[in-house]
């Protein structure tokens, strides 16, 4: 990456601002559809930061996997569980939010102090690799071969597990019922035995 230093600084500032603002929007906005689209903005901005860090392959993988797969999956989940419900108000909820905010700010101060006080062993005078795809491929097929294969097995397990967890049990003999023309015939749902929160507490 042979951009001038001013260009690098300015693009880092723009991308960092976009990341922080969009992440705050993901957490704080009340409409969850806006949150999902802002999450896509966070992912794309982080891909831009990866390009600033001389990592073109990982930036492309970030856009493909996060924006193309994970974000679309989250949007589909929002559409499937789209229930406009007002959450029941809870007593003393603001105390919990305030305590969480204090803990998060304290953690950020702690991490920032550690980052700024540590003397990092920056590699100076070493040119970064030109073709990062070849370098990553060499690692994948020599010293990271076992984790690479395990990752493929993990993806297969996650795919089968997600299908089994999320499928419905279709009853084929109820297919001709008239009143449920627009819904899939489904085995009657076994509601959880212990019911809501008022039954035990």
């Amino acid at each position, binding site marked *: 990456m042979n951009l001038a230093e001013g260009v690098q600084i300015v693009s880092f500032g723009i991308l960092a601002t976009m990341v922080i603002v969009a992440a705050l929007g993901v957490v704080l906005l009340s409409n969850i559809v806006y949150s999902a689209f802002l999450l896509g903005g966070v992912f794309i901005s982080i891909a831009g930061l990866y390009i600033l860090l001389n990592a073109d392959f990982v930036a492309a993988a970030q856009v493909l996997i996060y924006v193309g797969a*994970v974000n679309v999956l*989250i949007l589909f989940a929002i559409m499937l569980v789209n229930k406009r419900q007002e959450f029941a108000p809870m007593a003393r909820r603001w105390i919990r939010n305030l305590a969480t905010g204090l803990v998060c700010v304290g953690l950020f101060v702690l991490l920032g102090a550690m980052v700024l006080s540590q003397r990092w*062993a920056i590699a100076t005078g070493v040119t970064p690799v030109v073709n990062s795809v070849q370098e*990553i491929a060499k690692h994948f097929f020599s010293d990271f071969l076992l984790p690479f294969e395990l990752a493929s097995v993990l993806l297969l397990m996650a795919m089968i597990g997600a299908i089994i967890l999320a499928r419905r049990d279709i009853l084929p003999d109820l297919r001709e019922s008239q009143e449920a023309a627009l819904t899939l015939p489904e085995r009657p749902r*076994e509601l*959880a035995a212990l019911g809501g929160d008022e039954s035990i507490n």
Partner: protein
Amino acid sequence: MLQLQYFLLLGAALFCIGIYGLISSRNAVRVLMSVELMLNAVNLNLMGFSNFLDPQNIKGQVFTVFVITVAAAEAAVGLAIILAIYRNRETIDMEQFNLLRW
């Protein structure tokens, strides 16, 4: 010139925002989104270390690819679990998922 500390501070801020969303949000899908934010913060740290401390053999980028893989699997399984819970309990309020609480 860009410094390593800028990226580390940005990753720390993103991680803290993710923790706040993870604890304080009541929508189950938003909890999963906060987990994705935290994973991205860690990825940003790994990429910064890979570029500034180890630019010759870029092992941080290899780690980042593995983290992206595991995050995709986690998102798929987590959203499937949320769908199953929604079919059983008719809600996605985190405060009402208390069957295993006590």
